[in-house]
């Protein structure tokens, strides 16, 4: 076997931290090689060095056996290394072809036709299923990602780096992507997959390099290594995948939705005639592919979006038209889908962020004057309890925290307030195994205190792990509500596609 990429004893220091400490990565020709590590373990730094965005302080890089010095991404491209970034770099009102030839137009006159022909051929060869004449803004996120892949293939890259490629995809699109990766290696390309999702590695990778806190931990053969073994190598301790939970002690109805209709941004009904109740002491999971009305539903319950018709009752109070603060006061906690946009004020300190829902009342303030000492004490309590790590403690700006710590800060803020109803939307999106485990256990603990939890997640594993009942949504409609113990992933998957099981049987 020849190594197509070798990164030997790489060291990279940033002021204050060693991001990569003596890391070695050897990728064989024609394999899918995963790099597994928690957020901040140094995966991205390592790849940025390979792609020429950073320079290693020490160590050696060999491509196809020859030692190279990669100064910038152009060098990397010349060596046949291409990268699909987490955030796509596409011009939205250009066609697929125009995006792909951008920077490689060649000559004075644009030759769209032959470029488009070449793209079509590539697309067919690798099973990408892309029409070169479509405009980017009209195609799905999954297709946009495939355009990024085509961009690299068009430039004759034969080593392809995927940086957390599934974060933005639906389950079906993830399956498609896995298939594409397999096609790529069967055609002789090599793939480096950066991820912290073990099931993806299990599904597609041949070998896996594991790094933890900047250090090389080991290389394993994926087929013969269990997921829990890899997880414990990544985190440094045994990891529990199954959430431990007792049988739900269900109490009174906390949230009651009756014939709810909500408009989406496109001025059509995003939620249609939806009725659902969530009781004290249970977790109800809403399963569904992204964009099937979950966002509209959550925004209607939390007061961010007006309701067309129907009623929302919270613990006996009609809150259909109540303002957001009133809902919070009665007892809604909300872990929002987009933590950067909704969840935090990035330019503000942790202690301000922790108090943002409650600053206006005692003991946070008296007669309109903030109690700075109490604010700090409270923030200290939340950050200690939820292990939020930051450079300057509660005086750090929220924007300076890592994604996982930002999420822990939001979860901490919402849970310390002890709401009757906690709405958690994608509570573990983009987090590593350790943080996921912790947040899951906290959600179950909240349930066990006798509160209601409404969980919205696009990951079926999470829904099945946590929920006592599963409500499945498709195109704004509630397909069915089933007990987790009485269903399985296939049945829920079918319902997510809009097929109602029980009707068929009757």
């Amino acid at each position, binding site marked *: 076997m020849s190594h197509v990429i070798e990164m030997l004893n790489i060291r990279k220091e940033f002021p204050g931290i060693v991001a990569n400490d003596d890391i070695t990565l050897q990728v064989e020709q024609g394999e899918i090689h995963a790099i597994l590590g928690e957020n901040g373990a140094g995966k991205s730094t390592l790849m940025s060095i390979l792609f020429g965005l950073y320079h290693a302080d020490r160590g050696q890089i060999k491509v196809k056996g020859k030692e190279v010095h990669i100064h910038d991404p152009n060098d990397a491209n010349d060596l046949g290394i291409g990268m699909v970034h987490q955030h796509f770099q596409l011009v939205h009102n250009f066609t697929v072809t125009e995006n792909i030839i951008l920077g490689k137009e060649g000559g004075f006159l644009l030759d769209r036709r032959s470029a488009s022909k070449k793209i079509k051929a590539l697309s067919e060869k690798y099973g990408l299923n892309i029409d070169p004449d479509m405009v980017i803004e009209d195609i799905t996120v999954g297709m946009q990602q495939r355009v990024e892949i085509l961009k690299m293939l068009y430039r004759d890259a034969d080593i392809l780096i995927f940086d957390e490629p599934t974060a933005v995809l639906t389950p079906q699109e993830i399956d498609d992507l896995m298939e594409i990766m397999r096609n790529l290696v069967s055609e002789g390309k090599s793939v480096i997959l950066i991820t912290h999702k073990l099931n993806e590695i299990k599904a597609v990778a041949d070998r896996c390099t594991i790094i933890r806190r900047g250090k090389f931990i080991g290389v394993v053969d994926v087929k013969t290594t269990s997921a829990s073994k890899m997880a414990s190598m990544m985190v440094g301790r045994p990891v529990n995948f199954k959430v431990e939970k007792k049988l739900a002690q269900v109490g009174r109805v906390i949230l009651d939705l009756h014939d709810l209709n909500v408009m989406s941004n496109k001025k059509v009904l995003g939620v249609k005639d939806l009725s659902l109740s969530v009781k004290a002491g249970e977790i109800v999971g809403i399963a569904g592919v992204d964009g099937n009305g979950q966002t509209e539903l959550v925004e209607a319950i939390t007061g961010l979006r007006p309701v067309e018709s129907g009623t929302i009752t919270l613990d006996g109070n009609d809150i259909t038209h109540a303002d957001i603060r009133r809902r919070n006061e009665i007892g809604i906690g909300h872990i929002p889908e987009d933590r950067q*946009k909704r969840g935090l004020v990035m330019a503000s300190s942790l202690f301000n962020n922790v108090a943002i829902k409650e600053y206006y009342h005692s003991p946070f303030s008296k007669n309109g004057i903030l109690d700075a000492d109490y604010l700090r004490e409270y923030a200290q309590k939340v950050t200690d309890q939820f292990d939020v790590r930051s450079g300057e403690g509660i005086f750090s700006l929220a924007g300076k925290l890592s994604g996982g710590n930002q999420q822990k800060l939001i979860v901490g803020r919402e849970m310390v307030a002890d709401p009757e109803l906690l709405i958690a939307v994608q509570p573990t999106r983009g987090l590593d195994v350790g943080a996921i485990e912790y947040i899951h256990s906290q959600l179950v603990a909240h349930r066990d205190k006798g509160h209601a939890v409404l969980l919205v997640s696009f990951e079926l594993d999470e829904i099945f792990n946590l929920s006592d009942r599963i409500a499945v949504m498709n195109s704004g409609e509630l397909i069915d509500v089933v007990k987790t113990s009485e269903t399985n992933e296939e049945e829920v998957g079918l319902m997510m596609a809009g097929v109602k099981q029980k009707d068929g049987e009757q």
Partner: protein
Amino acid sequence: MKHVKIREKQSNAFLVAVSAVVLGLVAGAILMASIGSNPFTGFWFLFRGGLMNIERVGNTMATATTLMLVGLSVAFAFKTGLFNIGASGQMLIGGLCATLVAHYVFLPRPLYLIVLILAALLGGALWGVIPGFLKAKFNVHEVVATIMMNWIAYWSIYYFIPAYLKGPSLETESASIAVTQSLRTPWLTKLFNGSYMNLGFFIAIISVIVIKLILDKTTLGFSLKAVGSNRHCAEYAGIKVNRNVVISMMIAGGLAGLAGLSFYTGYSRNMQIGVMPAQGFDGIAVALLGASSPLGVLFSSLFFGILQSGKGFMNAMTSVPPEIADTIIAVIIYFTATSVLFKRFWDAVLKRQGDKAKKKEESAQAEVKKEGE
């Protein structure tokens, strides 16, 4: 620990401002040299013009008063994420209300001053609250609305003053108000040797303190800043975004109204028609240089006050045209607007020094350890 951090941040903003000022002055020097004047004499007379005797110091302070209040108005709106470009109009209306009171209301001095201040405050607040309301209700951008409000104020005054407040001789300005009805006060005038210095300066200082307290210590300030830095998060947290936009514009307008008070019933004693007060726009520069913080506005307005009141003297004593002072201000604004560059520079310098200190400490500790062994 906490105090060190906060001080570090403030000193950073301060370094950025000082860098911008120094570069502005250097640019001014280059310009003076390029038209054949000696920059050192130019600057000597520029600063002498603002500071050489107690009377000129008083005039500088009176000039700075208006800039301080407008700067505070713009800075306050900035904090809520709003760009108040309508301070000129708010000044005019605040000044008009104050001038009306000065002509028609006769009360014991302390009571009179309260009425006078309230009139200006309300006039300015009204002119600010209208764009705020339009923004909240109909999502009309405040830049467009405040500029239009400027012109509404300008033309209203154009017709109102000749019709109702006409001076004895000139059609283009209002009748002067009595000195006893103005913000001038005998002891201040005497103290500053007959300068324009007036009570407005104290109004401005009190405003700086009040605004600082509102922003730092109150729930109102908390919600205004939350709306300013992330309105989506503020909305999610249950803060009424629209109400805060209206309140913010109202307070900003009120502050600009006070600026009008200080200018039309303190610095001068009448209002001219057909003049859009330039201070309304200079205040944007004051707020920028002051990093939108109340204390920053205090110092930057004093600095701009010196330039503004010294440029006439510089022109009289040298061949340097007064526009050089405006050019310096423009360059300073330019460098303040690109302050990110300075921030990076000073961050790097401070960090390097910090690292050095740390290394020294570490090696010292290592040595101590060695000796111990």
